[in-house]
């Protein structure tokens, strides 16, 4: 505590920012050009330690290409990638693990043998990590079953277990919940949250299942046609996704006039007999009594949050 205070005092003196989180990944003007098209076009991303960065985009938007360039699977046409403050990717990659595109493993081996290969590859001496990881991802009971006979959910969990060998600090997951059933999606989501909260692993996760990302991500980047169209954190998102008060009435036009008279100009839309107010109105009692006083029959009154998926889609279409 006192150390922090000293740091703050020094920072004020030095005009620096000591409490700023460590930057795990910094991508500057990253571009990948295939033939005549830019698959990734001047993308800038910053991911800090402890973040769960949700990378959102349609199929073919450039998510996988960006991730591949970050871990050295694909060479950028231009731009700069810094992993843990170092531009030498081979050095930085030793602290990173990935699951890119399909879960990659040896189908003729069982889960234990697959983890063994990865353990040898990463030079981890402690053999007990194999059992620990199998336990963590819930594959301890898979026994001698060959990986090729696993269900999709088991394959995804095995791929994550492989990625966790060697205690990575930064996990890059490309669409890890693709093709999973709701139970599988929840399992993977819980696992990612657990890894982030308990092991402090920074996560860079891409998906086009937008509703899922907002259950775990702390920061977001939206990519469309190779361009990063927006970057914001979870708090900013909740502010941007407007609440909606839906009131079902017998006379919507009169209701709109009454609301405007009482609360001034608001963002109001009318759909059949439903009046939707896209603003924060704290005093519901006042709103209700104003409508009742004007002899308007109110059959329902609900407060809803705009669907995140609709918001993300609007972002990707460039409508926001």
């Amino acid at each position, binding site marked *: 505590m006192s150390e922090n205070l000293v740091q703050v005092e020094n920072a004020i003196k030095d005009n620096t920012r000591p409490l700023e989180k460590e930057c795990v990944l910094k991508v500057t003007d990253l571009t990948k050009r295939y033939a005549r098209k830019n698959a990734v076009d001047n993308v800038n991303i910053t991911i800090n330690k402890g973040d769960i960065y949700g990378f959102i985009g349609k199929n073919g938007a450039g998510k996988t290409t960006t991730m*591949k360039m970050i871990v050295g699977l694909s060479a950028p046409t231009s731009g700069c990638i810094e992993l843990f403050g170092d531009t030498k990717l081979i050095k930085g990659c030793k602290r990173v693990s990935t699951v890119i595109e399909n879960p990659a493993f040896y189908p003729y081996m069982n889960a234990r043998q697959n983890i063994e290969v990865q353990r040898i590859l990463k030079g981890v001496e402690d053999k007990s990590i194999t059992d620990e990881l199998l336990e963590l991802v819930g594959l301890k009971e898979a026994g001698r079953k060959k990986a090729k006979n696993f269900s999709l959910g088991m394959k995804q969990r095995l791929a994550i277990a492989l990625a966790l060998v060697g205690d990575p600090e930064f996990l890059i997951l490309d669409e890890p919940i693709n093709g999973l059933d709701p139970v599988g999606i929840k399992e993977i989501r819980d696992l990612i949250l657990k890894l982030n909260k308990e092991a402090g692993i920074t996560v860079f996760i891409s998906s086009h299942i937008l509703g899922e990302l907002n259950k775990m991500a702390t920061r977001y980047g939206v990519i469309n046609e190779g361009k990063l169209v927006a970057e914001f954190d979870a708090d900013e998102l909740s502010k941007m996704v407007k609440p909606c008060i839906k009131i079902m009435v017998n006379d919507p036009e009169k209701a709109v006039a009454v609301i405007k008279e009482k609360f001034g100009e608001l963002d109001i839309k009318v759909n059949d007999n439903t009046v939707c107010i896209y603003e924060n109105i704290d005093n519901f009692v006042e709103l209700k009594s104003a409508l009742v006083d004007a002899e308007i029959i109110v059959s329902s009154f609900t407060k809803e949050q705009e669907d995140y998926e609709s918001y993300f889609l609007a972002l990707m279409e460039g409508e926001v």
Partner: protein
Amino acid sequence: MGKLIKADFYKILHTKYFYICAALSALMAVLSVYAYNITVLESYGIYASFLNLNSSKAILEGLPAFGTFLTIVISLFIPSDFSYGTIKNTIASGANRISIYFSKMTVSLTMLVIYAVICCAASFTTGSIIWEVGEYTREIYIDLLQSISFYLFAYLALVSFYIMVGFLVRRSGITIAINIGIPLVELVLFKFINYALVTWLKIEDFTFNDYLPSTYVSKALNFSTLTSQEINTGLIVCGAWILVTTIIGIITFKCRDIK
């Protein structure tokens, strides 16, 4: 690179094809010795034992039996990381691409030696049973050692070519097709090239075969009959093949993206 080599050995030793092909190589080595025995019987009308044949002759007769099977094993092993997608795990964990290439080369070289030892052991045993063990003088030891060493070095040039094809093609099926198909195409294609060079370009005394490792693989089994010039040419040609194919393989592997 030690970790990569260790992991590659773990992978190959957990495949079924490694053991199946090793068993088939041993079987072929045994059959090769028997086949030689039958050939001698049919050609000369006498049993091979009357020609003073023994286990040392059997070793050289059975040694080439692994050829096709080793080609299959290498053609399955090298592109396997690409087809399973596991090469992404390896590269993304910070492994250097040159180290990955040399690790595969080391494992392939070891497989070459293992398969050669298996074939030698199988043919030695068969020769000892159907003929006799025979006398092993210092000269015979040296001749055997020179023949086998020259054979393995020439074969390493072929293995190096198979590895390069595996890294270029990145698909097991196509790699097998190319590596097994090359000797068949070689017969026709290289004869044509040789003809073209001699007839059209008027390059006299040119034999294209002299620049192919497969020529020296065949010649190695009669090492004692080779002149020192032939041996030197063989060493240079095979060395050059190893060097060139390795450089091409590494450069393309380094430059191409992983899909």
